[in-house]
């Protein structure tokens, strides 16, 4: 285990792991505040375009006019129903889930100073899923209202366990060990989930569409159920965003500079729990959104966590909704769940990150 769990020299690890340090640009493409603002507006525009595409594109071809009538006239029937009952709910859910996953990814990368961290890779999504499977199989939960708290509890327990186990020992955990711990714990919890679904074919059937991670087929009320959790989670993230900039310098330096490290940790874990739990309860485990988007944001605006979080708000729902739209058309007439599309886009990026000289020095 030595080579993997005890990487090279600590200083090199810290340098490579710190978001935005050494290997990446010290500052992003956009440096001045006005340029960053312009970029953010551009990303907002991108989000609007993707939202529009999500309403317009699908297996049934509808004109722009029909789509707009459907959106603004509550009495329109016929093809407008497709838009109102199918495309609108999944677009809204994609928006909420995307925001939640992207912000959670940015937070967990900042807290662990680990460029490879992602709620999915660290097992948080898997833990959330396990608790949902338990709720469905043993406690008869069928609706999101029934298992949203379970999803939340699972996310909380796994986040805590992974962070505690991954940073056991003197000097805290290295990014490498944290990742390995998350993967190991995720494998164990996934195994338990699989076992339970085998015992209960009914659970297996209702779970197999859910485990792929998809935003389709959920009524608008589902989004309503999880929205409060996402809002509170985003509030925690907003409270902690300044502190994360200091934490990027390392715990000791952060303490010395007056950063409240413990408070920041508690808030980040609360936020990640709320965001990932809510996203998982509504859409199932969707991976890699939280991994990719913070990297893009960092490349654009540099290491300032406040800007990174702001870009995650616009870019990650764009990514998720775009993945959903692609999933609708790529194998027409079959639909590919959004979670599968994000895995196909995200995994190569993970590999590319691991191949990069700096990240591989982790």
């Amino acid at each position, binding site marked *: *285990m*030595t*080579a*993997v*769990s*005890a*990487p090279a020299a600590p200083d090199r690890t810290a340098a490579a792991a710190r978001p935005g340090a050494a290997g990446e640009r010290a500052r992003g493409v956009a440096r001045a505040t006005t340029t960053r603002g312009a970029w953010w507006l551009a990303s907002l525009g991108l989000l609007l375009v993707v939202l529009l595409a999500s309403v317009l594109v699908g297996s049934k071809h509808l004109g722009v006019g029909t789509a707009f009538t459907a959106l603004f006239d509550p009495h329109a029937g016929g093809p407008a129903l497709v838009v109102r009952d199918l495309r609108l709910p999944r677009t809204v859910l994609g928006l909420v889930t995307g925001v939640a996953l992207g912000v959670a990814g940015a937070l967990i990368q900042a807290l662990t100073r680990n460029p*490879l961290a992602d709620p999915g*890779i660290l097992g948080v999504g898997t833990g959330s899923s396990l608790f949902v499977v338990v709720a469905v199989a043993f406690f008869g939960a069928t609706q999101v209202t029934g298992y949203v708290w379970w999803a939340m509890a699972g996310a909380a327990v796994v986040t805590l366990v992974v962070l505690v*186990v*991954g*940073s*056991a*020992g*003197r000097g805290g*955990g290295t990014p*490498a*060990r944290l*990742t*390995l*711990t998350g*993967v*190991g*714990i995720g*494998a*164990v919890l*996934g*195994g*338990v989930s*699989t*076992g339970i*679904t*085998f*015992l209960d*074919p009914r659970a*297996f*059937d209702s779970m*197999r*569409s859910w*485990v*792929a991670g998809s935003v389709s087929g959920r009524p608008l009320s589902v989004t309503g159920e999880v929205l409060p959790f996402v809002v509170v989670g985003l509030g925690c993230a907003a409270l902690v965003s300044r502190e994360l900039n200091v934490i990027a310098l390392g715990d000791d330096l952060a303490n010395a500079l007056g950063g409240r490290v413990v408070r920041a940790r508690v808030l980040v874990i609360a936020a990640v729990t709320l965001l990932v739990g809510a996203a998982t309860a509504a859409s199932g485990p969707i*991976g*890699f959104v939280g991994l990719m988007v913070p990297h893009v944001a960092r490349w654009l605006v540099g290491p300032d966590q406040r800007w990174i979080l702001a870009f995650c708000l616009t870019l990650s729902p764009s990514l998720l909704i775009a993945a959903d739209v692609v999933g609708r058309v790529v194998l027409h007439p*079959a639909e*590919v*769940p959004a*979670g*599968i599309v994000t*895995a*196909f886009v*995200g*995994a*190569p990026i*993970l*590999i590319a*990150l*691991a*191949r990069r000289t700096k990240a*591989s020095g*982790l």
Partner: protein
Amino acid sequence: MSAPAAAPAVARTHVVRLPGFSTRVHPRTVLVCGILAAVVVVLFLVSLATGDYRLTLGQVTSALTGHADGLVRTVVLDWRLPRATLALLFGAALGLGGAVFQSLTRNPLGSPDIIGFDSGAYTGALVVMLWWHGGVGQQTTAAVVGGLATACAVYLLAYRRGVQGFRLIIVGIGVSAMLGAFNTWLILTSRLQDAMGAAAFGAGSLNEVGYGQLWAALAVLGVLVPAVLALGRRMRLLEMGDDAARQLGVPAEPTRLLLVAVGVGLTATVTAIAGPIAFVALVAPQVARRLVASPGTTLVGSALTGAVLLQSADWTAQHLVPTTPLPVGVVTVVLGGSYFVWLLVKEGIRS
């Protein structure tokens, strides 16, 4: 990988010298292997004796020696023997395969599960199973091809002036995630009945095995296991590095190629018949190394430990829930994953 540094102190060695022949004997290795072999036999008998229809040890032995008849004979020889034997054999094969890979990569994470072999084999088998409704033979071939292709892809993607442990595992995770997404989609678009069968195979299961699979496995493993054991000495020398090994008369590249072929063959046989049984190949050599207190990988110890692990996991999977037998892979992933996490914690505390 500095395996020797992490290993416990080297065991005491005795040298046996006879006219024209001499060999080193590690008393602890012999003792541990003896105990493990005894445990293997006990577990084998227990798995033959327990189940819905309970048998005494006497009944089992009489059935095995051909003196029983009627129901006892049917239960032991026709129903339970293939599965019990396959659990033993596959455990040993996975242990050996894992030991070979870990020795070659000089890395405890260089096991077939990590380098994506398992998920690739699953994808291969699934495609044949769900799209072409192919038979067992085609399924097996597809599993081997898929596994090999994936392992090569992961190795090449992780290659950058040599393969480094952490990069290998991350690339493995990435490729496995992609294949996993693809597999989920395949299962999603199939009928529930097919999907459950496919998922059971995907978890790694011995629930459906019979004599057909047993003979096939025996034929392949009968060639591969002696081959690995014969390569064992060269493998240990290769662990010291190519230059040192060449100096000591071991042709480095041909040996490595042979070892890769044999290691892949061992794992592929298991995966093709029972599905990807996770973590045994990763854990068995590590446990064996700690038990016999040896500085490197031990082949016999790994094989025996693997057999013990898979036998007990399979027994647990069969009897944990009385009404529904679980796929054995579910048990190994939980046990093996826990061990993996514990190992990380322990290494963390020590460093």
